[in-house]
């Protein structure tokens, strides 16, 4: 539980979460004060972290990013399996810690009743034997890549003792998430296996589990990093003439931006552009260069046919430039 070693075992996550103990212990209270949307515990938790780390100089878990991942419940063989899609993590984000947050329900009432109603046996010393151990639960984590239909690779398993009453708990799953990411398997599933004979058909709980990933985004200090993550539209729409390579070709905006730099061979410009007089330099700028395009490709991608056509146009345009160069060169040679 949050009071138990599970919390103290979280090095960096504890930094962000120990302050939330009250919230975790009494999620209902927090939900009541924050309105109907607070049933969504992940939103409540993230708000608390935001308030904590909005203070100047505070760094979440020693990094600069906290990502939350909601669970999607699926019933597989009458067992609840929670799926997490971690694909929105950026390559530049170095994972520091990952924590799995879930609501542990107390032992089911009929079983508890059964135990209470049984006369307690006595041992040789005449003292009553302790009640049988509460039903243990096992938390199983599997990972799979996006295009596989397999059950997934088992990444980790941990035994949980059910708490006496409903309680939010957190478990450090940093090694699991790091390994899954290393192997490119960013769909993670979590399954709570109970030793109970008849766990019943799982139903969606108002307290769905979630994952928090604390990361250090190494690209956050790059120019325009705020636009890379927060700008959702391209201020230079498709109709806008683009003299250079189309910026939306690559899936990764950061890669795209790096690939956009064109050399003198592509743009027919003289090398050493930066050393020209300032006035001429300013006139040469195109708006795409003033604001490099880190924008997400929200526009529909053209069909294959259109793409081929566009490719031919680009090739023809390139050929014209080359023809011009050749003529110039011939003239120059004749002279």
């Amino acid at each position, binding site marked *: 539980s949050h009071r138990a070693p599970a919390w103290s075992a979280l090095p960096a996550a504890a930094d962000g979460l120990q302050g939330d103990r009250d919230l975790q212990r009494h999620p209902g209270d927090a939900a009541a004060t924050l309105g109907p949307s607070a049933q969504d515990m992940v939103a409540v938790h993230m708000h608390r972290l935001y308030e904590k*780390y*909005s203070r100047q100089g505070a760094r979440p878990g020693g990094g600069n990013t906290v*990502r*939350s991942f909601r669970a999607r419940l699926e019933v597989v063989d009458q067992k609840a399996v929670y799926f997490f899609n971690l694909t929105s993590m950026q390559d530049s984000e170095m994972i520091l810690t990952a924590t799995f947050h879930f609501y542990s329900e107390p032992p089911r009432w009929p079983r508890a009743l059964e135990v209470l109603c049984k006369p307690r046996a006595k041992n040789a010393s005449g003292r009553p034997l302790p009640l049988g151990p509460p039903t243990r639960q096992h938390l199983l984590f599997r990972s799979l890549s996006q295009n596989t239909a397999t059950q997934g690779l088992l990444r980790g398993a941990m035994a949980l003792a059910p708490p006496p009453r409903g309680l939010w708990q957190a478990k450090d799953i940093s090694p699991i998430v790091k390994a899954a990411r290393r192997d490119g398997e960013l769909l993670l599933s979590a399954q709570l296996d109970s030793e109970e004979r008849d766990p019943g058909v799982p139903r969606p709980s108002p307290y769905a589990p979630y994952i928090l990933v604390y990361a250090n985004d190494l690209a956050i200090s790059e120019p325009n990093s*705020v636009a890379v*993550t927060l700008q*959702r*539209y391209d201020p230079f729409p498709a109709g806008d003439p683009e003299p250079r390579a189309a910026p939306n070709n690559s899936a990764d905006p950061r890669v795209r931006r790096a690939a956009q730099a064109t050399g003198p061979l592509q743009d027919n410009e003289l090398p050493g552009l930066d050393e020209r*007089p*300032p006035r001429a330099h300013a006139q040469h700028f195109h708006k795409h260069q003033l604001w490099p395009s880190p924008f997400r490709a929200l526009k529909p991608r053209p069909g294959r046919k259109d793409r081929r056509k566009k490719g031919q146009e680009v090739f023809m345009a390139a050929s014209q430039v080359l023809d011009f160069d050749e003529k110039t060169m011939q003239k120059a040679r004749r002279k």
Partner: protein
Amino acid sequence: QWDEPRVCSRRYLKVDFADIGWNEWIISPKSFDAYYCAGACEFPMPKIVRPSNHATIQSIVRAVGIIPGIPEPCCVPDKMNSLGVLFLDENRNVVLKVYPNMSVDTCACR
């Protein structure tokens, strides 16, 4: 801001994310004090504008006027503060990022 000094200094600017169309996915803050730098960096530059050595020399060269086309140094942010932003990513998961250099603390001639 007519009453504000002409010399390079920090000016007030509050940015509302709704004004730039980012309010649909930014949860918090709704707005923040970004500030901006504006004003002259002309010779002689007072200490208050914290000129770099290069800026001092450039302002002298410009004041002497021997080399044409040399502009006066720029009034730019010197110290800046970070800002935590809570937003929804493409999968509508809540993300917290602390962005550096989001608001101006001091301005200088550079």
